[in-house]
Structures are given as C-alpha cells and as structure tokens.
C-alpha cells in the first residue's frame, strides 16, 4: 500500500517535472509532442505535460520545489524502509511522501490542463487531494504520538479521530464528486476557485498556499506543541525529553513563522482596504509556496533527526561503507583507465591489436583486484577513520588471548584490565576494586 501511495506521489511529481523540462528545452518539448500525437497508451500523459509546459514556474522555483520534494520523499521512504515496525516512523513516512507531492508548486500545473486535454487522466485531481488528506492526518497523528507511539495527553485522541474522519471524508468525497472534499470548500469559496482550468491555477495556488499556512503554521504546531510540552513535563524520561525538546523547538519556529505570516498578510490587506476573503494572503500567496516550505520543513527534519539520534540506523556503518566503496570505486576506475591505456600501448606495439582486448584485459585486472583492494582500503580506513573502534577490538582480542593463554592471578588480572581500559579509553583516572576472595 505504501508503495502504491509513493508511486502516486512520484507520478504527480514526474508530471510536473516533465512540464518543467519541456518548458526549459525545445528539444525535449519536441520529443514529448511527438509522443503526445502517437498512438501510445501513454499519449494522454504526454499531452498533459506538453499543454502544461507554458504554465511552468521559473527554473529556480522548480529547482527549489524539487529539492524540497526530493528531501521529503527520500526521508519518508528511508524511514519506512528502515523502521517498518515503528508506527511513528511509518506515519512520518506517509506524511513526508504525501507532502512531497501535494505541496510542490510545479506539480500543480498539470491540474490546470488535465480536464481540457486529457479528461481520462482526471483521476490525478482526487489523487492530489488524497495525498493532502493522508499526509495531513498522518502528520497530526505522528506529532501526537511521537516518540513512544502513545497519544499524550490521552484526551487528545479525539483530535486524531477527527483527523482520520476528515481524511476519510476527503478521500470519499473527492472520488465521488471528482472534485474536492469538504475541507477544501472554504478555500474554494474564499478564493472563488471553480473547476480546473488554466485560469483557475492562481486561485488553486492561493487556496493551497493558505492551506499550507493554516495547517503547517497554525494547526499542526498548536496541536503538536500542546502534546509535546505536556509529554515533556509529565510523562517523558530524560532520553525522550531530549528528543522532544528538538521537536518543540521546530514546532515553535513553524508556529511563529506561520502566525506572523498570517498576521502580516491580514494586516496589509486590511490597511490596503482589499476584501479580506479575496486577498487573505495579499501579494504573498506565491511566497507561501516559495519560502514557507523551507521553514515548515524544520518539522519533518526535527522529527527525522530525533528518530535518527536514537540510533534507529547505524550512521557509522553508512559512513564507513560510503568511505570504503567510494574510495574503492575511485581506485578501480583509475586502475581501469590506467590498465586500458597500458594494454593498448602494449598490444599496439606487439600485434597492432584491437582495443577490445585492452578493455577486456583491464576488466579482468579490475575483477581480480576488487576483493584485495577492498580489504586493504577497509583496513586502512578502520585504522584511521575508526581508530578507536579498531583499537578497542584489538585490545579486547589481546585481553581475551592473554586470559586463555596464562593462568591468571588476581593482581595480574587487575593490571591487564586497567592497562587495556587505559589504552583504549584514556580516562583521566580509574580504579579497580576486586573482591580478594570468593564471595561464597
């Protein structure tokens, strides 16, 4: 199910990315145009991409959108894959993957054209709202149960139920009506957004921008901070408190930004005398998409960091492997090119031979070198990059060997033990108390 959900998010993102690429490069646009008029079953997809290309954002905005979406998508999938049994990680994964697709400005361009050029793809509209609904509910739930999986305080469980009730209602209504659910109605009314057409795109973005601010800037931080502060004061142990602190900081920052943004927008529109309903965010509607996702990104980042800090995956191992295989790749690539060059020279001078032999010979050399070089790099890095771990393993092995080989007296054992600890950990001082006779 999570795979399907992620695939839907990825599909929406790729539609937007296709439009951006087509807008940026006439050659790519031409390829998509050829595909759009072809008889392929994917022709409607290419038609949407081609028609929405003129609506694309500036390249800088597209880059920002996709960097943020990439981070959200990557971290979300990573969490779910690494912690499939952890409910909080799964919720956060759902939230991050949904956010990646539903709050990407460029990915919204497809909605403006889909009904006109490819009505058979209208399903992407309800899918978009489903991603909104699921990610919103999952975010709220994750914040209320982080980090131990229980809703704290327990009476806030009604909020979780309400979130999931709204989620179900949004999903059902969007599929039944083919439009949007109840939560979107106020925004529709507010911005006069009706139906999906190129003209309606700015209104859709106004609507989504307001939703971003209200949800990520007000609702989530208020509910999350209430829960996390209560948890911090009344429930958490010291380790949980340390993790909660990070999340509360992130929520406070997001709430401050969201609330300030709304106040400034409302104040400026009132001062200008514009109608409140129509210009809630004034000129700042697009800024909501441009700036706020960066700031609101601190919530998932804080949750992710708080989970990672608990050694839910072994960062040392990841770094170690990266170092080993990165260096190995560089060494083997150099070896490959050097051996191709040398073999070419040798073969040419001996038999005027073809280059293919040189390439085959170089590949053989690389194959033979792979394991010995990997072992050697691993040893060197273990000694240098992870010196203490390496030292500890060696000291422990030496200590065990000495116990096996010698008959141990208590005093000698004490000396060895202290020497081993000192060599590895180097404490400023240490002591050893030993029972000098059998406790029996």
């Amino acid at each position: 199910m999570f795979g399907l959900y992620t695939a839907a998010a990825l599909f929406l993102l790729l539609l937007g990315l296709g439009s951006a690429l087509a807008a940026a490069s006439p050659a790519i646009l031409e390829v998509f145009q050829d595909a759009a008029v072809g008889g392929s079953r994917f022709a409607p997809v290419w038609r949407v991409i081609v028609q929405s290309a003129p609506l694309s954002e500036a390249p800088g905005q597209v880059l920002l959108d996709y960097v943020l979406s990439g981070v959200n998508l990557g971290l979300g999938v990573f969490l779910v894959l690494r912690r499939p049994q952890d409910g909080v990680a799964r919720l956060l994964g759902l939230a991050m993957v949904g956010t990646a697709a539903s709050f990407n400005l460029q990915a919204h361009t497809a909605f403006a054209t889909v009904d006109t050029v490819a009505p058979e793809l209208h399903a992407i509209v309800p899918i978009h709202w489903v991603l909104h609904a699921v990610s919103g509910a999952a975010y709220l739930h994750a914040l209320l149960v982080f980090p131990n999986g229980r809703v704290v305080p327990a009476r806030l469980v009604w909020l979780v139920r309400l979130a999931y009730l709204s989620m179900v209602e949004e999903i059902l209504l969007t599929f039944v009506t083919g439009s949007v659910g109840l939560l979107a109605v106020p925004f529709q009314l507010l911005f006069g957004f009706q139906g999906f057409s190129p003209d309606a795109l700015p209104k859709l973005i106004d609507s989504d921008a307001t939703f971003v601010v209200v949800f990520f800037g007000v609702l989530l931080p208020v509910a999350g901070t209430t829960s996390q502060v209560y948890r911090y004061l009344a429930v958490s142990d010291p380790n949980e408190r340390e993790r909660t602190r990070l999340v509360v900081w992130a929520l406070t920052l997001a709430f401050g930004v969201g609330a300030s943004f709304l106040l400034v927008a409302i104040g400026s529109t009132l001062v200008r005398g514009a109608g409140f309903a129509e210009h809630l965010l004034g000129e700042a509607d697009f800024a909501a998409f441009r700036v706020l996702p960066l700031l609101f990104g601190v919530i998932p980042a804080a949750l992710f960091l708080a989970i990672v800090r608990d050694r839910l995956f072994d960062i040392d191992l990841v770094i170690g492997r990266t170092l080993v295989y990165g260096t190995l790749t560089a060494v083997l690539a150099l070896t490959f090119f050097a051996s191709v060059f040398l073999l070419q020279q040798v073969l040419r001078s001996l038999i005027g031979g073809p280059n293919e032999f040189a390439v085959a010979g170089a590949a053989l050399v690389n194959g033979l070198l792979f394991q010995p070089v990997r072992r050697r790099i691993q040893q060197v890095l273990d000694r240098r990059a992870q010196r203490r771990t390496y030292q500890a393993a060696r000291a422990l092995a030496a200590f065990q060997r000495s116990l096996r080989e010698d008959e141990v007296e208590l005093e000698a054992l004490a000396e060895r033990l202290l020497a081993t600890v000192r060599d590895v950990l180097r404490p400023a001082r240490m002591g050893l108390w030993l029972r000098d006779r059998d406790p029996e």
Partner: protein
Amino acid sequence: MYCAPLEWGCGYGIVTQSSLRGAWLRDLWATLAGRPHSPVPAPNFTTLKQLEIAPDERLIGYFEQHPGPLVAHGIDLASPAALYLAATGVSLLVPLVTQGRLVGLLTLGEPAGGGSYSRDDLAFLTTLADEAAAAARIAQLLARQRG
C-alpha cells in the same frame, strides 16, 4: 562492618587509583617529534585511597541486579561506598559480575581528552567486564584451592 585499608582477611579488598592526566600530552609530543608513541607504561598502582565495601553494602546488591555500566551521578543509593565514589571524581562504574555475583568494580573518571564515553565505549567496557569477571572468579577459586 567496614574493613580497614588492605585488611585482606576482612574479605573485601583492593582499590587502585591511577592518574592518566598527561598521557595525551606525551603522545602529542611523540607525534610532533616524529617518534612512535611511547609504549604504555605499567599501570601506576599508587593507592590514593582505599575503598572498602562491606558485605551488606547496598551497592553490591544493586550491581548484582543491574550488571551494566552505570553513570556515577545516576546512583541513588544512600550508602557510604556510593558517597565515596561520587566524591572522588568517578564518572562511570562498571561492575564485574559473573554468575549473578559481583566480583569487582571498575571505576573511571572523565575521559582525559574531555567529552564523554560513547555507546561504543560502553559496549567495549561491558564485554571487557564480562571477560574479566569470569577470569576473576576463576582466579578466586584457584586461590581458595591453594589455601
């Protein structure tokens, strides 16, 4: 009842405190001078002060129940030994427990280079303590056999 220092017959025994301050300076000097680090000198067993732990000490019972490294400020026992340990700059206690019996206690101050002990350090100490505890128990049994 608490034993007098090094009063072996009383049943509970030795404590050693060795200062390692300055070890990093020697190594740094060796590195700067292009020399290999000096071989580790024999442990300095200058006894700074004796720790006596009575057979009915609550600390013993605690460690037999919780045989793992313990940060010193985490001790919440109103016992003379715990108070002594807290007062002498001990930051980490590593019990040597085998077959449910405490046979020794390793105490460590802060790392000489600053910072704190990592999870890997604690894992190392735990493994080392397990090995040492079993060896100490054997040594005690052998000593008893010899009379």
